[in-house]
């Protein structure tokens, strides 16, 4: 008897879990439900536009739907368009893999001032997420708070020349926006000592290789072999990117010309003028689902038939390889615990529903985006939800 499993969220965690489930049990009915009209979560809207190789995992995920017989139900937000209770009544198990999309707040006075933007919001705007806010004006001297890989992604994009973006899928609007910012210096602030920063050495090396970058480090790591020290020694472009470690942001205030950040450093309090502030200190739940309550239920045992995966379960730190490893472990556990009930209708729940995007619709969008790519880009994304929905809606008519 084949069990029915709903996976909520079509990012890497949801897709790797589905992949592992169907690999072990090809007859399962696995459905991937996503609030967006397109699959793959942060692979499309978080992994940097100039890291196309990393997005290659999408080919594996596509196989789920083209060969492994999973079905995609896009443009369905669980908790709003369909309730979790409805899903649980219809499926033998429900996996929550909805990620963590909200930028973690800075938690200091002035954090909501105009000119302060989260790295998640900024990257969604850069990568043309349909729900993104407008791209902000960063001005000549932006400050980035945080020293993880997302901060480095932002720095790299801000520092790249137009030629260094060739081959990416950065859209025309965001590309023009980048070229128009006129950034003269970027300051990066991290609380930890340089040696404890979370970014990966490879990412820093790549930053140091950019033609415009001139990396500087205050309170550097003692080892000369430290990736950032090497990058500082190797880079000599016209755009200073200054890393300030052991520097704790205390407060933000508005000035006539922009923002002023008060920080605590080993030398005492200091003030940094900023034309804008980009916070890249991690992610948290957007509050649309009751994360704590749902995680407690999922942990409570097999009787809840509820499972959690990826960033939604473990927090905003693992990268794509970890999603795969955890997805495989979770699939094994689900298959041990599941007890199918043929009375549950599974995907029958969505029969006749209008505005639902299936995988064939996504393949039409994908093909159109690839075909529309200009000479120096590998894809031209549709930015508006209505364009992403066109194949699904024209079928409904």
């Amino acid at each position, binding site marked *: 008897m084949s069990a029915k499993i709903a996976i909520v969220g079509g990012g890497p965690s949801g897709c*790797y879990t589905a*992949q592992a489930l169907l690999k072990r049990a090809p007859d399962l009915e696995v459905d991937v439900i996503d609030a967006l009209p397109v699959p793959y979560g942060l692979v499309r809207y978080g992994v940097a536009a100039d*890291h*196309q*190789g*990393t997005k*290659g*995992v999408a*080919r*594996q995920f596509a*196989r789920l739907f083209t060969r492994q017989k999973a079905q995609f139900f896009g443009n369905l937000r669980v908790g709003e368009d369909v309730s979790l209770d409805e899903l649980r009544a219809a499926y033998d198990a429900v996996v929550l893999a909805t990620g963590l999309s909200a930028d973690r707040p800075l938690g200091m006075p002035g954090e909501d001032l105009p000119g302060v933007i989260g790295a998640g919001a900024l990257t969604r705007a850069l990568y043309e997420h349909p729900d993104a806010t407008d791209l902000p004006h960063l001005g000549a001297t932006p400050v980035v708070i945080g020293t993880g890989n997302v901060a480095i992604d932002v720095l790299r994009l801000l520092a790249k020349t137009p030629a260094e973006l060739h*081959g990416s899928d950065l859209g025309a609007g965001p590309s023009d926006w980048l070229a128009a910012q006129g950034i003269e210096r970027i300051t990066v602030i991290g609380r930890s000592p340089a040696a404890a920063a979370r970014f*990966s*050495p*490879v990412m820093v*090396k*790549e930053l140091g290789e950019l033609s415009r970058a001139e990396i500087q480090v205050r309170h550097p790591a003692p080892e000369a072999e430290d990736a950032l020290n090497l990058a500082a020694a190797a880079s000599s472009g016209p755009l200073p990117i200054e890393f300030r470690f052991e520097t704790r942001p205390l407060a933000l205030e508005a000035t006539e010309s922009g923002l002023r950040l008060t920080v605590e450093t080993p030398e005492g309090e200091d003030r940094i003028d900023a034309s804008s502030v980009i916070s890249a200190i991690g992610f948290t739940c957007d509050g649309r689902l009751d994360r704590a309550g749902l995680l407690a239920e999922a942990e409570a045992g097999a009787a809840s038939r509820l499972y959690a995966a990826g960033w939604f379960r473990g927090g905003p730190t693992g990268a*794509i*390889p970890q999603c*795969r*490893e955890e997805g495989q472990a979770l699939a094994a556990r689900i298959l041990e615990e599941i007890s199918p009930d043929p009375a549950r209708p599974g995907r029958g729940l969505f029969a006749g529903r209008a505005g639902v995007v299936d995988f064939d619709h996504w393949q039409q969008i994908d093909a159109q985006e690839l075909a529309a790519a200009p000479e120096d880009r590998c894809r031209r994304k549709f930015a508006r939800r209505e364009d992403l929905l066109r194949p699904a809606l024209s079928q409904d008519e």
Partner: protein
Amino acid sequence: MKIAIYYGTETGNAEMLAEDIATELEDAHETSVADLAETAPEALKAAELNVIVCSSYDDGDFPASAKPFVEKLNDESPDLSGVRFAVFGLGDSEYEATYGFGSMKLADLLVACGATTLGERIVHDAAGDDLPEDLALPWLAGILETA
């Protein structure tokens, strides 16, 4: 001839290619697919054609699933004389200085243990336009002609 396909992977691309290769060959050959993470060096047999698909990570390092196998090669230096293998790499030319290093280092280690390479190692570039199977299948067909 039996063809044993192994993969060393971190995000699953090498596994998918290993399966594609097996699917392509299974009508004409007996095939098997295994993760290097679950493979001991002694499992590589002289009587079989061993095909290894391996990616690269972090500054030319091995992908996670190849690491236990590599450790065994390093620690135990098994005698692999008589074993014939072909290596196909997955990489990304954006990592210019270490492009394809995972597959290269693995091939070097196997040779150091006495095994023999078949054909030229080639690397699929994740930053390019080719699909891995479009490179790997003709590459392997060429190797099978001479093996």
